[in-house]
């Protein structure tokens, strides 16, 4: 539980994750959390990016405080979330460290796919080097808890959470899976978010 006066790195990680994934913080980090995926992903991301991970959390915090006066994503407007995300991901024309932006993408992919895509070359304290672009499954729980499966209103391939015959019917709504109300999508992808030509020093 969060003390109103002390923001922990995990709090920042959860809110940053809610912002980039589009899933509610209560889905990513429920109050009763036996699987504790948030901790698994936090620890894994930090172990593969070190100080850049800390810088990412700071960048999120600063941007959120500046833009919305809070880090609580559920209380932000869509415009505020967009502005903060654009800043963190380096999509708004202001300067953002390329490694921080790339790590934010990797965090997003980790939640969605349960795999870690190494955002930049990194050597950890034990001397192990991780190559940019390399890919590894974080854990079996991270795989089956991946958000991509929820975004498609289903379950991980290899881990059904439903009963016989369910596939004959329509699934529950997308909102039920994400915990957030959903805007309708266009087939071209949003044109209001970021710019496709922003390439702030490619990290990979």
């Amino acid at each position: 539980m969060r003390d109103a006066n002390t923001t922990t790195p995990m709090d920042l990680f959860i809110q940053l994750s809610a912002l980039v994934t589009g899933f509610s913080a209560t889905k990513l980090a429920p109050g009763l959390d036996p699987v504790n995926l948030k901790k698994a992903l936090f620890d894994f991301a930090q172990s593969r990016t070190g100080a850049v991970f800390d810088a990412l959390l700071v960048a999120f915090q600063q941007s959120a405080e500046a833009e919305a006066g809070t880090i609580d994503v559920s209380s932000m407007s869509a415009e505020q979330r967009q502005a903060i995300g654009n800043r963190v991901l380096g999509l708004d024309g202001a300067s953002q460290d390329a490694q921080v932006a790339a790590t934010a993408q990797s965090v997003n992919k980790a939640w969605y796919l349960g795999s870690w895509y190494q955002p930049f070359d990194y050597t950890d304290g034990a001397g192990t080097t991780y190559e940019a672009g390399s890919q590894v499954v974080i854990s079996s729980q991270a795989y089956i808890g991946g958000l991509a499966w929820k975004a498609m209103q289903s379950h991980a391939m290899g881990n059904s959470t439903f009963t016989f015959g369910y596939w004959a019917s329509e699934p529950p709504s997308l909102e039920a899976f994400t915990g957030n109300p959903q805007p309708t999508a266009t087939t071209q992808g949003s044109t209001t978010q970021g710019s496709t030509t922003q390439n702030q020093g490619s990290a990979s």
Partner: protein
Amino acid sequence: MSDTTYDVVIVGAGIAGTLIARELGQQGKRVLILEAGIDASRGRERYLETFYKNTVKTPESPYPPVVEKPSAQATPRATIADTFASNIEPDFPGNLSEPDGYIYDPEKSYLLQKGPLPFASTYERVAGGTTWHWLGTSLRFLEHDFTMRSTYCVEKDWPMGIDALLPYYNRAEAEIGVAASAQVQEEELGSVGLRYAPPDYQYPMQQIPLSQVDTALGDKVNGIDDFVDFEGLGVQVTPTPAGRNSQSIGASSRRTCAGNTNCIPICPIQAKYDATVTLSQALQTGHVTLISQAVAKRVCVDENGRISGIEYLTWDGPQDAPTITGTATAVGKVYVIAAHAIETPRLLLMSRTHDQGALANGVANSSDQVGRNLMDHPLYLSWGLMPEPVWGFRGPLTTSGIETLRDGAFRSQRAAWRVEVGNEGWNFSIGDPWTTTNDFIGGPHGASNNSQLNPENVQLFGDALVARLNHAFTRQWRMGFLVEQTPEPGNRVCLSSTRGGATLRTDGLGLPRPVIHYDLSDYTKLGFVFAEIFARQVYQKLGGRNYTLNTPSFTTDSVTVQNPKWFALEDAWRHYFTELPAALKDPRLTCQPADAEGVPEGFQYFGSGHIVGTYAMGASAADSVVDRDQRSWDHANLFLVGSGVFPTITTANPTLTIAALALQAAETIMQDLG
């Protein structure tokens, strides 16, 4: 072990081997099964954990060896990973004419592929065999499948007609536990030659419910019989009979399907049948012994031409660095080789004598057909987006197919096919959800529109990302056309040797690896043409869009290499496309790449996982390896079983027929043993 005499020695603990073992064991016969791979058949934790942690979820992903190093490993086998673009030899195809020239790097690919096209299907070498990763589809062959030569003047006739197999199909469906409604199947497919006997035959379990994908498709195509180039042939989406529990009833104590959408590579709850079920039953008789990690290396023949033993190696230790722990000879009265259609001919050829005698060409090979007529169902994958959500990625990987186009007069001209309707979105087609998710999270970074859904390389996050992914994934669907390949003697399994100046390549036990020669005939390739023409019309009727990419080449790090699993469209066939109505040339309906007239440059194919034909049955010893009882013409106490005995591959998945024929062989062997 060489002093224990068994009634029957069986090589291979797959579906055919275990069914025969169980049948004989229940009759009190002493059976020995030699299984090359490990026996992890009592639970699936190990395989499942390997699967969850594997970054690529290929059919082989749960099973050992996980990373192929075929020259070092005890039981390497063909895998999809063997055929990744990164393994294509840089000077392919020019290198094929060199003695050591293969399509794929021989350090990575177990099969030494001489081409001109690669054989694309794979198998497993573990107790339970390839049924660990089969789909579950349990279709019967059609009447004309057995009489292609007499009916259509192509391919070959089987040495028996469909009637001989009907009682065995019933038994196989009971053994595997197939879920279907015979009434529905007969209503929809009686006209193309599907048969049941007796007339009131019932499958063991209710049919698997159709998915939303199936009903969306059926709504638009069922009952239509005026598809261009398919005039007079009705189209119907039919539920697919499957070896997958749909009720907790009867002898099976396994769970009912929960729609894990993971049949390939592994059903997490064993709702899908696999041969470990039969293996357990066989062991439970008390008369069957399984020796795992025992690789058969030689079939021994006595001076009377009877099989006198099977020499095998036992191995232990890590796959990548195995230790040979012993050699022995298994002795029985009757011998059965059930090692699937690449390892069985490999064993028979390895057993050749180095003289000019009868066995100079291998055991059971007086016809010179062992290893020949290698067939697959080359798969034409066609994928697209539905206009409205159909919510794929749910249910079993497939629940229906279009079976009504499997037979007809056209079979004298071009290959027939069945259409497998996929429930897994674009998972097979492009590796989703990984590919599309990477496209939209990464935008211009790293990934570059591999899904074709992000041509502007938009980078998304938050609500917009959720919405865009939801929009894509819920509309994704695909068809797989299982195209009938013709038996060709030049498509064959040989052994690696130093002949012609090549380097001998062996596995980690020192045994020579298989060399594959393989191509697709015009008859088969023309089947792809008609598959594409059909697919376009399906997309048209659905109001959907075709996203099929028949990739002619791959470019990695500015190096471009030809896609081996691709063939160009014959010039002589361009007219099939140019003569289509204009609406069917719309690029939204055509595969790509195609020219302005919608003429495809060529076609890409995948393997269906069906390995067939390499020791075919026939009516005469001159041109077949076994007779209709699957007994070797050359050695009276040798039976060869499995899909290798099929003289033709037909249009149906082979496993049900493998099981039916195995049960027939078991009867014959019982009669032999008396």
